[in-house]
């Protein structure tokens, strides 16, 4: 009798598994933002959740802020969560570098990329009253004299993009680490430094006032700034340097769940109101599915690990 009951339970479990997957999601999904409310990841996540919740039937996406340790606290929590698709991480590029740089205990392979929704390419920005009108002028001058370049902090993605430029040119920069975009903007708009390495998302809002963008590290020129050349056009042999934002789930999550979530993100992306909101908030919405997102993650990991090793950054 006992034996029979066991097999019965086992049988139900086996039978239940695919059914569960098909009916996913049947409960609320926690979208973990590992930063404080009001930041770029939080804002974009809330815009996505709002649209996604109009598409979901019988389930809700809740944005959960687990801030601390520069993102590591929330990221670690998701890496250890049940791989059932009910805990999703708002994944940023920092997941790639944090194990090496900040001593995070997880590995990038502890996450399964689900979908990408925003790529933020690096730009070289100068004060509006800077003598350098073009990227060529700036680069030529930088070979003669050491430029003071504002970055968010040593060993951040922005600092690394500068190191990457140094690798492919004869230039050496003086890095001026400044925490917070406000302080960095103050330094550039006030003309206290020569240039800044910024993500396009933040730089774009300041163009036309105190800031001029000289080059963007993406394969194509930005639609909003057709006169700004790409890094390659400006003579910097870096086809792309971009931080990314997307969704990831803990490793071990089933293919079906990853597919469901990726489809959901695609449906969000195809909603006109969503595109409008993202653009108004200053983010360029894109969509890449799980496989394509994984390629982005891997190539970013390759780019950064070479630089981290060469420059002797990290612990």
């Amino acid at each position, binding site marked *: 009798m006992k034996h029979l009951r066991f097999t019965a339970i086992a049988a139900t479990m086996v039978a239940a598994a695919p059914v569960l997957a098909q009916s996913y999601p049947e409960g609320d999904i926690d979208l973990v933002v590992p930063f404080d409310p009001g930041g770029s990841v*939080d804002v974009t996540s809330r815009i996505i959740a709002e649209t996604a919740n109009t598409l979901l039937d019988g389930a809700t996406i809740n944005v959960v802020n687990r801030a601390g340790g520069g993102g*590591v606290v929330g990221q670690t929590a998701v890496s250890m969560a049940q791989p059932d698709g009910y805990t999703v991480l708002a994944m940023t590029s920092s997941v790639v570098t944090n194990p090496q740089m900040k001593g995070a205990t997880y590995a990038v392979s502890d996450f399964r990329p689900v979908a990408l929704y925003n790529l933020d390419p690096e730009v070289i920005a100068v004060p509006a009253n800077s003598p350098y009108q073009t990227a060529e002028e700036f680069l030529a001058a930088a070979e003669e004299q050491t430029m003071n370049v504002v970055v968010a902090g040593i060993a951040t993605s922005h600092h690394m993009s500068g190191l990457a430029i140094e690798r492919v040119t004869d230039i050496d920069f*003086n890095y*001026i680490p*400044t925490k917070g975009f*406000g302080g960095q903007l*103050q330094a550039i708009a006030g003309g206290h430094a020569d240039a800044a390495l910024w993500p396009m998302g933040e730089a774009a809002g300041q163009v036309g*006032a105190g800031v001029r963008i000289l080059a963007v590290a993406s394969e194509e020129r930005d639609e909003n700034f057709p006169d700004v050349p790409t890094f390659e056009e400006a003579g910097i042999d870096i086809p792309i340097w971009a931080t990314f934002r997307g969704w990831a789930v803990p490793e071990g999550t089933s293919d079906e769940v990853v597919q469901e979530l990726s489809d959901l993100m695609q449906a969000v992306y195809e909603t006109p109101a969503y595109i409008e909101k993202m653009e108004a*908030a200053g983010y360029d919405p894109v969509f890449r599915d799980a496989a394509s997102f994984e390629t982005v993650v891997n190539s970013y990991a390759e780019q950064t690990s070479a630089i981290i090793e060469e420059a002797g950054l990290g612990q």
Partner: protein
Amino acid sequence: MELIALGFQTLANPVVVLMLLIGVFAGMVVGSIPGINDNIAFAVFIPFSFSMPTDQALALMVGVYCAAATGGAIPAIVIKVPGTASSLLTAEDGNAMARKGFAGQALSIAITSSVVGGLLSSIVLLLFAPSLAMVALRFGYVENFALAVLGISSVVGLLRGNVLKGCIAALIGLLIATVGFSPMTGAPRYVFGNVNLIEGIPFVPLLVGLFGIAAMLDLMADILQSRSEDETPTALPAIGSLKISGRMMRRLAPVWGQSSLIGNLIGMLPGAGMLMAIFLAYDQAARRFRRLFRGREGESEWGEGAPEGIAAPEAANNAVTASSMVPLLSLGIPGNSTSALFIGALALHGMVPGPLLFTQHGDIAWMIIVAFLVANLFMWPVAWVVLRTVSRSIFAIRKEAMVGVIALLCLLGAYSDGANIFNMWVALVAGVVAYVMRLASIPLGPAILGLVLGPQLETSLNNSLVISQGNWLVFVDVVNHPISAGMIAVSALLWVVPVLMGLRERARTNATEET
């Protein structure tokens, strides 16, 4: 003028005005609860604001932001537990005055000072926002370093008696500020492999511990002492009459002007923040008090119930609220961590703060500015209602129960900043440390100042020297950095003048002894 009218027009919607009023009320209550501050309140509120119309959401936030700084003074005065960090200094003279039976007077001075400071700074914001923003841009790394030096020099004014202990306290603060990954090298410092410390010791829980938990331990010691002496614990001071005399108003007017000016200037400068403004204003008021009133008949000692000790920090902290919007709205540069949350709220509604905000979303930009003015007008009546209802019922609780409630609220507040258990430990440890410091009579003020200014001192010094190629004289370069040179000179005076005065006094007493 037309633009200002546009702001009023946007605000004139009854629902928006109602939201502003609710915000002022909520801010006052949030501020008056130890352990919960406007930062935590915003973190909770921003997700909700998403589903509200932009004008309503921002009106509510302006109300909370303005009033929280005022509400913090209520528990600071009645139970010597600052409701927010901005009323840290108010607790000294405010509570001393309350214990002498003038709680109503103290509260009234605090609220009136807040309203005056807030109104003056709203008017400055209304009339000069875009042109003042240009002043903020003149502050580079060199100027920021000089400003931080000026801030830390204001410690002198806080020291009563032991200078050595004050300096030790400031050093403790600076030392704690070094915890976390170094922005200069990217290397970990005193992190001990704990990921929670990567960005330094979490600041909000740290403050909650230093004020809330420490004050709770103090209350507990009070209760235990009166028990062991077999007395009934002294009751909390009754609030009493809220009237202040015209004579007092005239006496405080110069302090209000001076403190509001300091608050306005500091608020405009990114990174300096509210705490620095209250310390600087307090320092100036202390000097004035010693010059004019000390030793007169019927006057208290400084720190033991001087009205200037309440008026200065309260006028300054409310002056910071509106002026911190100057660089935020005009340049997209937040003046402090709370106003930084406005950026998030604006972005959620599809607006990017910065120079283009006034052209693209002029109605909202001007509404925010006008809302600051109106919120300050709401403040007095709302404060009166809160004191008569909410505060009265809170302070009617037995002291023993209040200890438990404050402890719970502090831990809750610490936790809700990032939903992290680790933060509760930070608050607890910080509270115990602050309590031990108090027992050793090491002042807390200089430590907080060191804590707040540490990162700014470090990065601005490093970056100034990198840019100037290691030239230390850059800070006193009158030609290229006149602002910095001026601030360094004032800082030097802050240190030297008291020493000279002391020497002169000693010489004079020696002279009288000889004759």
